[in-house]
């Protein structure tokens, strides 16, 4: 099972847990599993059927480019962090 790090602002939904083992073949499936256990968490990470544009997925220290379709395996460590793509503050523009 992949190890998912729960962002600090979502730990209220996981009873304070910061790292959770989750089953799934892709990032999307991990989020589905999280949603089963912590209803409402999906909406915090996703905007409709895609990841929120200001959130990046980092797997084992490398940013994923395939969003929800990014494959994960049992040894992976998965982080959801603010999307920062070097040099471009446009990356931090937020939808309101």
């Amino acid at each position, binding site marked *: 099972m992949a190890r998912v*790090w729960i*962002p*600090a*602002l*979502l*730990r209220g939904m996981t009873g304070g847990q*910061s790292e959770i083992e989750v089953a799934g073949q892709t990032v999307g499936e991990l989020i589905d599993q999280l949603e089963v256990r912590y209803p409402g968490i999906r*909406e*915090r*990470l*996703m*905007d409709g059927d895609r990841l*929120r*544009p*200001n*959130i990046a997925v*980092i797997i*084992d*220290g*490398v*940013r*994923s*480019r395939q969003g929800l379709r990014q494959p994960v395996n049992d040894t992976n*460590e998965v*982080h959801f*962090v*603010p*999307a*920062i*793509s*070097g*040099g*471009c*503050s*446009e*990356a*931090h*523009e*937020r*939808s*309101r």
Partner: protein
Amino acid sequence: MSGENQSVEQPTYRVVGTRPIRPDGVDKVTGRAIFGADVRLSGMLYGRVLRSPHAHARIKSIDTSAAEALPGVKAVITGRDFPDPQNKVAASGEGTVNLRSLAHNCIARDKVLYFGHAVAAVAATTPNLAEEALKLIRVEYEPLPVVLDVLEAMRPDAPLLHEDLRTNEMGQRSERPSNVANHTRHERGDVEKAFAEAAVVVEREFRTSMVHQGYIEPQNGTVLWNADGQISVWCSTQAPFDERSQIAEILDVPVSKIKLTPAEIGGGFGGKLSVYLEPLAAMLSKKAGHKPVQMVMNRAEVLAATGPTSGSCIRVKMGADRNGCIVAAQAWMAYEAGAFPGSPVDAGAGVIFAPYRIPNVRIDAYDVVVNKPRAGAYRAPGGTNAAFASESVIDELAEQLGIDPLEFRILNGAKEGDRRADGPVYRRIGFIEAAQAAQAHPHYSAPLAPSRLDPTGKNPAIKRGRGVAAGFWFNWGGKSSAWASLNPDGTVSLIEGSPDIGGSRASIAMQLAESLGVRFEDVKPAVVDTDSVGYNDATGGSRVTFGTGWVAYRLGQKLKQQLKERAALLWDVSPEQVQVEAGMFSCNGHRITIQELAAKMHETGGPIVAGDTFESEEYGPGFGVHIVDLEVDTETGKVQILRYTAAQDVGRAIHPSYVEGQLQGGVAQGIGWALNEEYVYDADGHLLNASFLDYRIPTALDLPMIDTVLVEVPNPGHPYGVRGVGETPIVPPAGAVANAIYHATGVRMTTLPMSPARILEALGKV
């Protein structure tokens, strides 16, 4: 040379690591290079912008009739001429842009949100006439209360810039509207417990002012909206493809209607990633009857209305145990986004503790709108202010523990496998190597550099000191596309889409030359328009030499493969049997050069062409460690930089001169930020120093030679080991200078810039 080069291992390259003359060099030293404002089209009109004299006001009415009636005026536009984009967030290559913010920043609709906000524009037959026409436009404003300071803007009773703005906290919107657009938190371990157990704890609050990128070439745009609906744009931009989409969205036309030709660009540093003038010039062109319109900002407009970077308030608390290990770090960061959300505070939160291995961390980051220009990216956005705060506190911790400041940083330095403050694990990084290189540099063991202000050494008011600081930047890979075609004489034409802002034609061509096995001089690079090459992300994020370089490498391999096939055909062998070494193809005693193969290409199957597009996420972050010697005149508050050394893990320096140049340029900007540069507003939000006379960037006289140490820890994610280098060097200088001022005077400066007035104040002299 000023630099030295320390390589962990040195494979032999023929081209990589040499210092050839850049292909666009002659045009740039003879004045032939065409920058954006040099574009000349027949029948071209000149556009000028009317800007708001208020920092916050409702626009009640705009009367343009008198301006329109002026002979020679061909078009006048206001916000009403533009469609109103939805609150759509465009995925724009490297990230996202809120198009509504962008559109409203280009030209105000019902409200102006900062001094200098565009409200109308005119196109006329001469620039002076356009300027005259602006004076005839009558705008009725209803001034609104102004909020300029980040902390004041966060108060619940602060005047609101956007009535519909709610605070986003990882997908959750606040109930009430607020100027706080976003709050992010990173948390790991238990900071409270760790602080309670720490042997020493240092806590301070830091303030920094809004500062500008200060590129010497003002924003410009020349646009022809043709009668057939095709829109041609010439401008200076770091991001031709992203700006093309921004223009398309703002004008509500399909992106395929726009062709953007990037001109030579006179500096950007992040400030030329989004549009200001181009949509206005397009609309003026259309309204003027499909005539080309050129718009060029003056310096006052550049300073008042184009993306500066955030002023900030940063509180840092760090604790260490008796052995000198940092046990906990906490930061509270609030950045001014300017008039629209989007400060680089999240990036700052990523930078602030990045060089160190810290088990317990909490960081809160707030993005806050104020009545100032919309913040753009500026070289390592958010990083310099963040590192100014953390590196000052680290210096203080080291001092309290009685440990040498570089030793302390090395002791706590992050390595492969350690965690970033925000969680993810580092791959191969070179922080320790960079810090050790700084430590081993003669500068660090030399006596303080001699005084310049007081060559006799007799003036007791002159105090000298040395400071060090570290810095980090994420870097970026991004998407690049390019073409290469072999010419019949064995040279290669390289078609790329990454604007060359500091010598990248050379560094990209060098990688193709290395990969294919030809000389650097045999590669002819060209940067072309958006119709002529596939998508390229911006020239930004320290990505081009890495990302476009990757594509150049792959193009070289692809051409080589085709050449092998041609040689195999000539010799009737299989391509796998053909050996290739430095441009010489051989098999079973046959030998043929690239030049000979190229001459035969039409008889062996036709043109030899390769195209490619690629993106790698294995760019790997950059780390730098700087040392500065300076002197403070404690009578006048003036600080003079005496000696400066910047060490950085650069992965692999493709063209070392330009890598040194990146370090030197970043240092110079960082020193300007540290000592002089700031936006000065009056209480009503009028910018008081919108000129290069009053917004003072460093001159040749303010700086010494800047020594560089290029530490080469090859990045395993690139065929030649390249890492981005451009941004990291602006991160450490403010912290290094502050630490040196402390060691000179005994006073800790906690506000940027550390101008003479602030120094005197801190010294208790005023």
